């Protein structure tokens, strides 16, 4: 149960061309996330969603402001799911699971692979799996390190609609069991409503446009009318942006 605290965070990139203007990816964002919640960060391309995750994971440094990701009084342990699965093609599924762990961890790896329905793939190489299955391994891998905070960067954006839909179901099952703190970046409002307890909407220029609570029980079906109603309402708010 991690706590994410973002204080007056800005990230300004140098101009892409000589003589151009600097690019503001994140402009003065203050934000707190705490507890066993699934939080989505939604917004159009180029509004600093991925930059925010990169700053939280320490890949990039802020221009100004502070971020802290803590678990109790120690730094939180992070897990990642990327846009593509990022598996080692020359290692088996099981060895890929064990690659990110300090201890041997075979028992946990087995358990999480089972939870995404891939028990039979232990000894297969990633090249023998479909894109959706590879991404499921990626998700199982992130959960298996049992992170305090899980960062997911548009994990379903490279998949076809049907595969993405089934992966969302897998993700919800996993989340309902583990209740990790999740920060989930997506440009898909419909997906965000189905998955999240809270949606933070970023606008171009990297400022917070809206902060919406979704109060529906988990797991949610995409076809559930209550989910669909919420989706329509929030899509409506987007039109005002």
């Amino acid at each position: 149960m991690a706590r994410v605290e973002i204080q007056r965070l800005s990230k300004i990139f140098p101009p892409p061309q000589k003589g151009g203007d600097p690019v503001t990816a994140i402009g003065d964002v203050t934000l707190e996330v705490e507890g066993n919640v699934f939080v989505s960060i939604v917004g159009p391309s180029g509004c600093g969603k991925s930059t925010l995750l990169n700053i939280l994971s320490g890949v990039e440094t802020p221009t100004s402001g502070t971020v802290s990701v803590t678990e109790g009084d120690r730094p939180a342990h992070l897990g990642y799911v990327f846009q593509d699965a990022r598996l080692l093609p020359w290692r088996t599924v099981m060895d890929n699971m064990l690659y990110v762990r300090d201890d041997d961890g075979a028992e946990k790896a087995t358990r999480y692979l089972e939870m995404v329905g891939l028990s039979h793939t232990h000894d297969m190489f990633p090249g023998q799996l479909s894109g959706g299955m590879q991404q499921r391994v990626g998700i199982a891998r992130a959960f298996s390190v049992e992170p305090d905070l899980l960062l997911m960067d548009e994990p379903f954006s490279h998949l076809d609609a049907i595969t993405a839909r089934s992966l969302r179901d897998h993700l919800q099952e996993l989340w309902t069991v583990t209740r990790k703190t999740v920060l989930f970046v997506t440009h898909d409002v419909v997906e965000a409503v189905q998955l999240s307890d809270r949606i933070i909407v970023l606008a171009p220029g990297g400022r917070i446009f809206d902060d919406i609570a979704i109060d529906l029980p988990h797991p949610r079906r995409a076809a559930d009318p209550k989910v669909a109603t919420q989706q329509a309402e929030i899509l409506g708010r987007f039109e005002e942006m």
Partner: protein
Amino acid sequence: MSAAGVALPEAPAPPGWVRQRLISPVGAQVTAVVVFVGLWQLLTLIAPRVPSPVEVSQFLYVEVTGGSHGGIITGEFFEHFAITLRRFSLGLLIGFTAGLLIGIVIGLSGLARALLNDTVLVLLTMPAFVWAFLTTMWFGITWQAPVLTVAFTAFPFVAINVAQGARAITPELKNMSSAFEVGRWKQFRHLIVPAVVGYIFAGLRFAIIVGWNGILLSEWFSGQAGVGFRTRYWFDANRYRGFVGWVIVFIVFIVVVDRVVLNRLQARAFRWRDPIEVEIDLSRQEQVGV
């Protein structure tokens, strides 16, 4: 064509028996050997100083079985071969390990590339005989001279290839590894080495060829034993069948190492690239074709 009244087959005819045998890998190799021996035999007709395949075979038989070449000179094969093989393996191990480590450092670090890349390139252009002479000057007629000749000639080929491979590792996998805080040794074993393994084999192939070249030269000039020494012995004795016989041994040795040892290791290292499904699909297609 059809004017001759022959019905044309609907599908293209399968290649004839001879052609089929020729294009199979084993058939092609056997053919290459037969053609080589045939040309050699022809050459002896034009140039009588060249020993014929039969003469050389007879020599090799006596040399390998330890029989008499005439008088008190007896065949010596395995002791020389074992000595050379020992020196060669040790030298290759040193050169390969150094090449692997330095290649990875050059590939991953810009600073190391700036410092070392040109040096390795200079070493690459150094002919093997320079190392054979230099190491003999340093160590005299000792076992270190041939071992280090192999190490020095093999090293830059491994280093240059591995450096290229290490530079080609995808940044996504590197980012993933650092995001999950995977330790350096684990990254080395599971990310870097497998990513450069194709380049390692390319480097190793060259390293074996130039290293073997180097050890022959070194033993020729400064050996008291070994295959290079033995080859020179027959050269000095003006016995061309002995000289050519040993040259044939070298060719066979290199071919066997490349085809049998390296190819098997390579197939093992690239298991992940040959999914079973592909094979099944191919066999199915063939069945459909028939």
